[in-house]
């Protein structure tokens, strides 16, 4: 597996080449260079996966953890050191496949989507940087390397959200994303340091002896690490950055803010899962409750948003929360005894990356066609964009949990794990799953069905009521539809992957079996959600919709404003933190610290003024001083000797 170093080396080289001399390249060359690099990495990842899983299990029935590269990077004291390396185990291999596949699709798609944009080469350079950081994150051999790459993905996300740096909204969104995730990462770092201090290692798998000595602080450390993960994975109340991050180019949203980076938090919890389950199960269950609340919150908000990317953003938050819940409801590390959630979570991560990537890329194609994010500018697009329509529908069915699409299988496992934890949790999550089906099909109908905005505009134009000729929506070019089709095919078949054979909570093979009762209820609920959405939105704004809208005006308004979470955060930061903490600190800095420095300067200056006349330039006065000094020294010597 020595070639695995190229999986990291090629993207960073591509970033350096594109970043340093990209501006001298024509757009096409830069795009092709970036795409070729990531295609090579994708092929290497597939080969690595084939070799790894092809080698089979060892005597204990586990896939062995391989560490082809590890070098000491920073020795800290005698026992503690930070290593950099590559670790291959089932979940990191799975993440490699997810990241390189989605990244490759996004690279190809961007050739069409970003065509002719200013800064095209910069865009590809940043995409390469992001891919490198994300791959480094998943193959990290220890928690500190993970943290280093964790921050790198944060930076690349910041750079890509703020790609349109002339747009104030994009700059604000990029800063918001960076500050919020960085704030959460502070807790992550504290967690890592506590963990490293007490267990004397940054490894994911310390020995039992080291762990037992640190058992009392492990829940705190793991809880703090989860806060970092919650920031990256947009868990309530740290979710506020993700909807705004949609200001970035749409393929970036697909890659970073739907498929890969935002699941880093889930990956982190999965990585630390053995420690969670053995030493901090109550923290794990807290994660489940946070996740469940986030899933519901985001699903409700997604029901009323009008910007299609915002709907998808909240849907992403909700789906990631599903994965968190699945991890949180695990009761043991044996999948047969309540540890199903781990596998379910990873499975959902895999399928979700594919269909959510597809949804975002589809949304990108739609935005490309109608030049707007608002649902009011869409409607009736199915005639104009058949490929996008079909692929988008497949992704909607998948996320709604309709068999045989991928989302059904993974969501079913999650729901089974929830029912196994407690019936209340299961019912709650089933309800959220139904809500998912509802809001996704609301989105679907609003985009592709109902009255066509274009036709209305055209009618107005031909009647001579407007002078502005509407722009006819058109199907996206082949560079954009090909990734859609590939992802749609993956979405159709991914559910049949025997996922438990590769990944399970204790590493042993596990056969996925569909729980008939859970599956039936979830399908029925999903269909119910779709039917309600059909009644309400298939024909544009029906009377029922208007009646519902007017009867629940307050709730809908509050949900449209995301239950005022942003305003609450602004209140907390601007009114409370700035006034009560920052201002006193600023006062202290200006008056006490600066004052002490100023005093030092003033005293020095006064002293200088006082002794300045001595430097008269008069040689004779100097020699008088010299003689006086010599006499004093001689007299002292005589006196003391």
């Amino acid at each position, binding site marked *: 597996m020595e070639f695995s170093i190229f999986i990291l080396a090629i993207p960073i080289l591509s970033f350096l080449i594109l970043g340093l001399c990209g501006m001298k390249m024509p757009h096409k060359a830069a795009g092709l260079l970036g795409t070729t690099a990531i295609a090579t990495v994708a092929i290497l990842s597939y080969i690595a996966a084939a070799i790894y899983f092809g080698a089979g299990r060892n005597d204990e029935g586990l896939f062995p953890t391989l560490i082809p590269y590890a070098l000491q990077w920073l020795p800290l004291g005698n026992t503690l050191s930070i290593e950099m390396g590559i670790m291959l185990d089932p979940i990191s291999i799975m993440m490699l496949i997810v990241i390189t596949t989605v990244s490759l699709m996004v690279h190809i798609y961007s050739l069409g989507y970003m065509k002719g944009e200013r800064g095209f080469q910069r865009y590809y350079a940043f995409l390469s940087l992001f891919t490198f950081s994300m791959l480094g994150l998943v193959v990290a051999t220890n928690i500190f390397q993970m943290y280093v790459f964790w921050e790198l993905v944060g930076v690349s996300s910041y750079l890509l959200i703020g790609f349109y740096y002339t747009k104030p909204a994009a700059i604000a969104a990029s800063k918001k994303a960076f500050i919020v995730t960085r704030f959460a990462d502070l807790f992550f770092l504290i967690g890592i340091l506590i963990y490293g201090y007490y267990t004397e290692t940054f490894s994911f798998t310390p020995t039992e002896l080291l762990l037992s000595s640190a058992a009392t602080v492990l829940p705190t450390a793991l809880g703090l690490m989860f806060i970092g993960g919650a920031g990256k994975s947009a868990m309530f109340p740290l979710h506020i950055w993700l909807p705004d991050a949609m200001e970035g180019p749409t393929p970036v949203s697909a890659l970073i803010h739907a498929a890969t980076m935002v699941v880093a938090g889930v990956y982190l919890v999965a990585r630390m899962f053995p420690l969670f389950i053995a030493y901090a199960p109550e923290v794990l269950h807290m994660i489940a409750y946070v996740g469940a609340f986030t899933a519901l919150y985001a699903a409700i908000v997604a029901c009323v948003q009008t910007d299609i990317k915002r709907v998808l953003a909240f849907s992403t938050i909700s789906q990631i929360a599903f994965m968190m819940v699945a991890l949180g409801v695990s009761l043991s590390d044996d999948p047969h005894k309540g540890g199903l959630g781990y596998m379910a979570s990873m499975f959902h991560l895999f399928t979700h990356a594919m269909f959510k990537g597809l949804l975002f890329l589809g949304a990108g194609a739609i935005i490309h066609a109608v030049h707007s994010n608002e649902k009011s500018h869409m409607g009736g697009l199915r005639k104009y964009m058949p490929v996008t329509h079909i692929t988008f529908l497949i992704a909607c069915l998948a996320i709604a949990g309709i068999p045989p699409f991928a989302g059904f299988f993974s969501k079913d496992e999650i729901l089974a794990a929830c029912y196994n934890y407690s019936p209340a949790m299961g019912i709650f999550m089933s309800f959220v799953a139904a809500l998912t089906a509802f809001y996704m099909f609301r989105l679907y109908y609003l985009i592709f069905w109902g009255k066509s905005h274009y036709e209305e505009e055209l009618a107005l134009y031909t009647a001579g009521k407007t002078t502005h000729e509407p722009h006819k929506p058109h199907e996206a070019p082949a560079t954009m539809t090909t990734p859609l089709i590939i992802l749609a095919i993956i979405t159709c078949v991914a559910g049949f992957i025997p996922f438990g054979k590769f990944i399970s909570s204790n590493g042993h093979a596990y056969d996925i079996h569909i729980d008939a009762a859970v599956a039936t209820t979830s399908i029925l609920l999903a269909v119910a959600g779709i039917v309600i959405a059909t009644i309400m939105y298939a024909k544009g704004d029906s009377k029922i919709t208007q009646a519902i809208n007017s009867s629940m005006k307050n709730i809908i308004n509050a949900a449209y404003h995301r239950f005022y979470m942003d305003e609450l955060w602004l209140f907390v930061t601007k009114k409370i933190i700035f006034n009560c903490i920052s201002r006193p600190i600023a006062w202290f800095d200006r008056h006490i610290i600066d004052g002490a420095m100023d005093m030092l300067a003033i005293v020095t200056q006064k002293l200088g003024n006082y002794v300045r006349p001595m430097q008269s330039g*008069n040689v004779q006065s100097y020699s008088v001083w010299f003689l006086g000094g010599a006499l004093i020294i001689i007299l002292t010597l005589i006196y003391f000797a």
Partner: protein
Amino acid sequence: MIIPAEYYLILATVLFFIGVFGFFTRRNLISLLISTELMLNAVDINFAVFNAYCHPEHLEGFFFTMFGIGITAAETGVAIAIIINVFRNAKSIHIKNLRELKY
């Protein structure tokens, strides 16, 4: 009759302090140079006296005296050159012209 060493030493001290006094009070660079010469000569006398009275079997003191005279001659040459340059620039050899060197 041997002249006691103290006589020489008193002479050297007097000579030295005449030089110091001249160095502090005169304003003419040539006078300053002469004062310096006086101080150096006082030192040379000291060398010779201590050698002759304390270690008559050695010659280091006399050698140092010879060195001192030689170096004094060289130093005078340099000093005169400086003074000539000062004179060329300032048309005067008053010591106040050297204050400018501070800057």
